[in-house]
Every structure is written in C-alpha cells, then in structure tokens.
C-alpha cells in the first residue's frame, strides 16, 4: 500500500454489534403456517426465464424439476412437496419487477424424488462438475453465478479460496453454516481442490471467529489440501478482488482465473459436498433476519421460495411503520418496494432497518471516497463528471470498474449518495456503448 493510492477497505464501526444480534442465537426452524404456500419464480436467480417443466395443477415433490435455466442450462428444483395451485405475479428481488411465480400448496409430507445419485470416491473431475451442474448449484454469496461454470475446463489454477468473510454488517449465515457443517465444508473444499487441480484450498474468514477456527482445526488434519487463513475485519474484504489481493497479493484485470485463483462461497462449498457425496439438492436456506426494523432478530432456516412477509411475521413483525426492507446486507442491497418477494438460493439475509431520512450537503471534496475505494477509482470525480455530463471523463475515470459496494456513500461526511452517481455514470457509459453499436450496425446496413 502506498500513501498516494487507495487503501481499499475500511473497518465499519458497529459491525460486531450488528452481527451479535444473531450470531449467538440458535438457527430457528420456520413454522409450518409460514410455509403453507411456497412461491417459485418462473425465472432464474438472475431473472432469465426458465424452460418450464411443470404447470398449474401438477403435483410436485421435493426434488421435482420446476424448469431449466436457459442461460446456463441448470435445473431449478422444487423445495417442498404439494400441488401447484396457481400462478401469481410477485415482485422479483433481482429482476426489480413483478414476474410470474408458481404458487405451491405445501402438503408437509416432504415426499422426495431422488434427483441425483451420489458419486463414488473415484469419480472423475468431469463427472463431479456435471454433478454440480445437475444439482443446480449457484453461488450462495450473493451473486448467484452457476458454480459449475467456474470449474468447467479449468486449468492453471493453483489456489481455491473459500470465502466465509461475510463482510456485510448484520449477516451471519456463513458463520452459522461454517459452525454447523464443518465436515461438509472441509469435504467440499477437498472436492473443489481436486477438480481444479489446485495446490491449496484456503478457507478465509475474519480473525474474530475464533470458535470456527477451533472447530475446523480439530479435524483439519484429515484434509491436507485445506488451509485456514483469517483476514482483518474490514469492508469489503469479502469482495473477490480485495480478498485475493489480501491473501495472495495478486491482482488481475477481469477474472480471478487470471490470477490462477477461483473464489467460492463457503455455503456453496457445503452444497457441492452434499450434492457430490450424498446426491442431495439444495432445498433450504438459512437466512439472517436482522436490523432494528424487525421485532426479533434471528437466523431462520426456510425452504427456498418462502415469502419474506411470512418470515417477518414469524419473527414478530416490523417495529416501525416506515422501514427499509433489504434482501442482503445494508451496504449493497437496494430497498424492496414490498415484502411480497421470496427467498432465492442466493439470498442470505433480510435486513430491516427503521427509516432514517438522510439530508446531504454539498461535497466537501475531502477525498475520503477516493481514499477508501476498493476498486481504486475516484468516486467524487465521477460524480462531478456525471453532474457535468462529461461522458469521456466518466470513461477515463474507469467508472465501469465500480462494484457498487457502497463504501463511498457510507464514508461521505456530507452524506451524498456517491455510489448512485457512479451507477448513473456506468449507465451512461452503457447507453453510449449501445448507441455506438447501433450506429455501426446502421452504417453496415447502408453498405
């Protein structure tokens, strides 16, 4: 680190307190009435439509394929058994607009279809990758990127990093799952290390999680490939680029594979182990429900497709008339318009905060946003360029490299929504790109 470059991260004050709201409590099982109806969207986690396999009126079981994602060719499974009774337009957290959901009436019989066969010890790497695809596993850290893609035709990888940093305030699901499923985690780690031919697999989490450290250390001797490394409590330490730089001192341009690294979430790793070793698919998800806007803060295990409103009701409802409802942590998630959204595999938390009006002042030009930007760009300069509609300047400031971690808005003493300005800048760049493409096409058509 040089004194004239960005520091790249920041310890968030009060993050420990926010995590303590849920980290020491038992994971609750959701009540039956809250999951009497389950809603499965007819689009994938990234809002691309599914090729549907079922229709209204069908009986479904745990493990029935609802549809296949057209973009990555992976199945979406049903998480309960029962009957599809209707289709309903519900808000989709990722798509940001209402989409059709299947409404499944839960019969609580929990009948299962064996979707996958467990693989033997001698399964080849290709077979394992295929198994991961068939299990429909997506990145559970938040992005929802299909896991098998990262390992298909993999080469030149020497390190796999399993990300349990969970740098967002409030969220504790990674922590809970690491505590509870340490063996699956280590087995999954070994599998991922094997199929990527990596020299080592690093499980990374924050240094203050001493109990996880102790629990893993008890049995880690059986898994020679796996190592544990801790990182400091800073935001956004869980972002791939920051984490890779912190652990391996390597930097890359576009993809982690350029630095010979693959990064996966720890919960994804656990799901990989379950799918490969036991042929089980993911049906339930632990979500952290926290913040001062909900009566009772806790981690809850829910079937995928549970409505957020019923989870909140299960935990005693809202504490205020005006709240911000966020799927994910408070740093990156946008406010949901209503609580009719459902839990998807890549959602690991519901943060509910009382509404606080924020009044912003003119920019002080203090440069705190520049000094802390993990992407190493200059948010305040991009803001000025966006305000003056100077697209060339926005491009020259590398606005596209922004990961929208929200640190610049967080740190701004004038309470300016800096991140929003950078997002606007990115949008303008994209529009310009599209315009150029359209012009090129028109020019070609003329010829």
């Amino acid at each position, binding site marked *: 680190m*040089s004194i004239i*470059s960005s520091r790249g991260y920041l310890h968030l004050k009060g993050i420990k307190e926010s995590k303590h709201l849920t980290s020491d409590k038992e994971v609750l099982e959701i009540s039956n009435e809250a999951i009497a109806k389950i809603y499965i969207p007819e689009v994938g986690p990234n809002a691309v439509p599914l090729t549907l396999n079922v229709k209204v009126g069908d009986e479904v079981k745990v493990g029935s394929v609802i549809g296949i994602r057209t973009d990555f060719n992976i199945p979406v499974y049903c998480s309960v058994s029962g009957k599809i009774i209707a289709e309903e337009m519900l808000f989709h957290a990722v798509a940001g607009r209402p989409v059709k959901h299947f409404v499944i009436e839960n019969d609580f019989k929990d009948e299962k279809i064996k979707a996958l066969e467990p693989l033997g010890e001698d399964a080849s790497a290709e077979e394992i990758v295929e198994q991961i695809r068939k299990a429909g596993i997506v990145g559970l850290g938040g992005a929802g990127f299909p896991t098998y893609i990262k390992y298909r035709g993999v080469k030149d990888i020497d390190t796999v990093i399993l990300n349990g940093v969970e740098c967002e305030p409030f969220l504790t699901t990674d922590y809970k799952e690491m505590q509870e499923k340490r063996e699956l985690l280590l087995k999954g780690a070994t599998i991922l290390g094997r199929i990527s031919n990596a020299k080592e697999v690093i499980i990374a989490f924050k240094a203050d999680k001493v109990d996880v450290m102790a629990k893993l250390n008890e049995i880690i001797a059986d898994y020679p490939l796996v190592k544990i490394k801790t990182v400091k409590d800073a935001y956004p330490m869980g972002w791939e680029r920051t984490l890779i730089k912190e652990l391996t001192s390597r930097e890359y341009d576009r993809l982690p594979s350029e630095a010979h690294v693959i990064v996966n979430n720890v919960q994804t790793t656990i799901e990989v182990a379950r799918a490969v070793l036991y042929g089980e698919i993911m049906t339930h998800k632990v979500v952290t429900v926290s913040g001062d806007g909900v009566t009772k803060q806790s981690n809850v295990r829910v079937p995928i497709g549970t409505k957020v409103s019923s989870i909140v009701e299960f935990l005693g409802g809202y504490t205020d008339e005006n709240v911000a409802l966020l799927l994910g942590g*408070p740093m990156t*998630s*946008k406010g949901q318009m209503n609580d009719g959204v459902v839990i998807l595999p890549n959602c690991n938390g519901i943060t509910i905060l009382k509404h606080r009006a924020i009044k912003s002042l003119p920019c002080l030009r203090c440069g705190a946003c*520049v000094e802390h930007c993990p992407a190493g760009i200059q948010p305040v300069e991009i803001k000025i360029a966006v305000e003056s509609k100077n697209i060339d300047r926005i491009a020259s400031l590398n606005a596209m490299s922004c990961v929208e971690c929200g640190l610049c808005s967080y740190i701004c003493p*004038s*309470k300016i929504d800096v991140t929003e300005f950078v997002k606007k800048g990115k949008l303008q760049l994209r529009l310009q790109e599209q315009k150029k493409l359209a012009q090129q096409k028109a020019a070609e058509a003329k010829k």
Partner: protein
Amino acid sequence: MKFSMSPAPFLRRKRTTLAIMLELTIALALVWLASIIYYFTIGTNHGLQAILIGVVSTVTMMLVEFLFYLPKCIKDGKEAVSKNSELNCFKETMKAMGYKLSHSFGWVSGLILALLLPVGTPLYVVVVSAIIAILVGKLLFGGFGYNIFNPAIVGRIFAQLCFGTSLAYGVEESVSDFTIFTGATVTSQLSNNNWMTTGLDIDLWKLLLGNYQGTLGETFTLLILVIGVVLAIRKVIDWKVPVFYVGTLYLASLLAGFCGGYGLGSFEYALIQISIGGIMFGAVFCLTDPVTNPTSPSGKVIFAVGAALFTFVIRYFASAPEGVAYSILLMNMLTPLIDRCIKGFTTKKLLPKWGVIGGIMLASMVLGVSSGFVNHGAYDAEYRRQNEFSSVVEKVEDNVYHVEVEQGEKGRVWSKIEMKVTLDMNNRTVTKIEVLSYGGNGGFGDALLTGGEIEFSDDFAYFGDKNKALAFYDKYIKLDSPLSFDEYLTIYGKENSIGNWSSEAKGVIRVGATYTTMGFIYGVCEVINYAGGAQ
C-alpha cells in the same frame, strides 16, 4: 406499512461535515485563545483588540452570508407556509436560515482570517477584508463546497494589497523584551537580513512557543503543531498535505543552511525557517481546506509539494516575505488542473505519480541550494558593511578627547558619530560626553543619542523600545554622575564586531538602534584606549 426506497447503502458513517467543521472550529478557537492571552500580557488594549478582530471578522462574514441567503430563505419560508398554512412564515424563514448558516460554515473562514491579521489591524480593514473574503472568495462561487480559493486567504491578501501600510505600522510600540524585532515581524526582519539568522539573536524556544508578535495566530508554532497532529489523527485534516508541505520546506531550508555555511546549525536554521511567517498555521489550517484541495491522495501530495515550491520561490526570491498566503492561492488555482490530470485507477501508475512529486520536491531542493549560496554571499557583504567600525581620536585638551566613529566598509561610510569625551584618569571614570553630530536622518538612533531632543517619531516606533532607549541614554550618555571605564569596556569586549559581542553586551545595546549604540560604545572605548585607561 411504508417501505423506504432510498438507495444503498443504508448504513452511513456517523461522522458528518458539520462535526468535522465544529472540531476545526474548536482548534481555531484554541489558537485564538492563546493569542488573546498573549496579547493581554502585553497590554489590555492589545488583548481587547485581539478579541475584537476575531469577533468582527466572524460576525461580518456571518452577516454577509445572512444577507446573501435571505431571499432564498424567505422563498423557502413562503413555500413551507403555502404547503401548510398553520406555519408561521417568519419562523420558517428563520429555520431555513439557521440550517443554511450552520451548514455554510462562514465562521470558520472568519476565524482563520482573524488569525491571519496582525493585532494592530484597524477594525474597518477587518470588516472590508472579511466582506471581500466571504463574498468574492466563497459566495459568488456558489457557497460552501464550490469555492476555488480559500476565502480567508483571499481576504488576507486583499488586506495586504490594499491596506498594507496600516497592517505593518498598526502595531504600536511594544513592551516585548524581544527587542530587535518588536513591531516588525520576524519574517520581514529576516528577509532584510537575507534570511540569515546568525547575529540575530533569535531564541528558538520563543519562536516555537509563539510569544512574539506576528499575525494573531501564526506565531504559536508548537501549539499549532500539536493541534495539527490531533486534527490529523481525528481525520479532520489530511495529514499528507501539511507533512509534505512542511517537510519539503524543511529539507529545502536545510540545504540552504548547509550551503549558507551553517554546518550542523543548519538543522536549527531550518527549524527556524519553518517556524516563522505562518508556515505552520498555513499548513495546518489553510492549505488543508478540503474544498480547495485535489480529491485524490496523489493529487493532495502534488498540491502540497507544489505549494512548498511556490512558498520557497516567493519567500526567498521575490519581495514578499510572507509567501505562504500567495502560494496557497496559486495552488488553489491549480487544483482543478491537478484533479483533471489524475485519471484512471488511484492504485496504478504509482511510479509516474511519485516521479512528479519527486520532481517538484527536487526543484525546491535546487532552489534551497542556490538560495543558500546566493544569500550567503549577499549576507557576507552586508555583514561587513554594517559591522566594521573605524575611529579617529584626537586629544583636544587635557582629559578631553574628540572622536569620530565611522561605520561601514572602507571608502563607503554608512554612518558617522562625532563626540567629545571627558575622562577622569585618576578615578578611571568618564565624566562627560557631548555628542557633536550623529546620523542625522531623524531616526530612532538620532533620538537616542540626543536623549529624545529629536523626538521619537511615531514613524519609527516599530523599530524599538523608547523607554529602553532613554534608559540607555540616561546611563551611558547623559552621565549625571561619572561612570566607570569598566562599564563601557565590559560591553565592548575585545572585538569590534557585533557578531562576537557577548550576549550580555547585546542585551545592553539592543534597544532598537543597535548599530548606533554599538558605534557609540565603540567610540568611547577607543577614547579610553587612546588615553591609556584600559588595563
């Protein structure tokens, strides 16, 4: 149920711009307080003046802001009433005004400007420069956050350019024991001496503690340093700016010292150079104003070393000893350019960035070296010119001698004293001294030699201490009763150059017309020697 749709992140750091500005205000208030206390120790009227300057400057700025924002706030007030008719229009207007004023931070500029002015500044000058500072320096650019120049510095330079004489002569006779510099600032004195500190008996501790006269705030070097460290730790100011600024100046001065022939004394010399002329005050309170700084870390460092270069150039090679203010304005002007030039990632291309920073620093170093050599030569010449005395003694009658003392190089007489001295060889006393002629420019020295017959003109009041001068006259010239030879001889010592006079002797002769008293003592001692009275 209402769901908030404001953009992420939903957590914000507790620290606000208002809090940062309040901390800065406290820091400035501390410096102001130190200044008030110091001036009260000099005289109640000075203390009151120090308070008044601060109050007038701040109140003026707030008032101008009030008037400037009044139309807008009245409009806001009316709007609020039109939405909710139960509200009181006046109350709403005042509420809008309160928010506007408390988030425009006019008082910060007000305090800084006050601390940049000398205690003798007439209040109308304070008012006019405060108006220019806030109106031209800030409001016309769009108010807080949009100003290009540091408002307080704009006001200060306006005062300097338009009311320069009232600033310099406004400081009336002073009771400080820091005699040689009383009234005139240390900086201008040093500037007159080609920035060489030998022969000028500066007490470093006094410089650091700040109990000498300058502008209200700039003299308390040590206090400002401590406050600066606290502010930097509390992240109110960015440490990079003052550290690189003062650091560059220190290194350049160090080189100037070495090349000026100070040897190991260069470290002290450089320390003196950065302790004077508001460098510390400028570095901590003016240069760090984030609104007028570049936003990127590398930009800030370039800004700081650039300001150091300009300070060095202006201070040592141009005619304005207080180069700090000008250098800050110049760099403020270049801030948009610096911002413009720093594109892309802050984490990349570090080497070229360090190259630019190093280049600017190197330029300062080169200037430091050359200024050392240039000033050394110039000072040598000046030193010889002023410090060489020669005398012609004639015996007029028994025990009465006529002596003519000349000060200056051979063939270039700088000043002349002619007197008749009567000795009592038996008792080894001087019984009578008659000053026949003196410099004749009507200055402080003439007034001294005539015991106030030529009046201590107000024009020269800033040179020295009238009471001390009269005390010197009473003891050594008037001679109500005969004075022993030894009284003169001990002052004189062995060498006829002030650089080698003992510090005790310096204490006696330094009353505001050093070369006059020195020449006088020299003359008397030459007579004693001539008559064989020295043993």
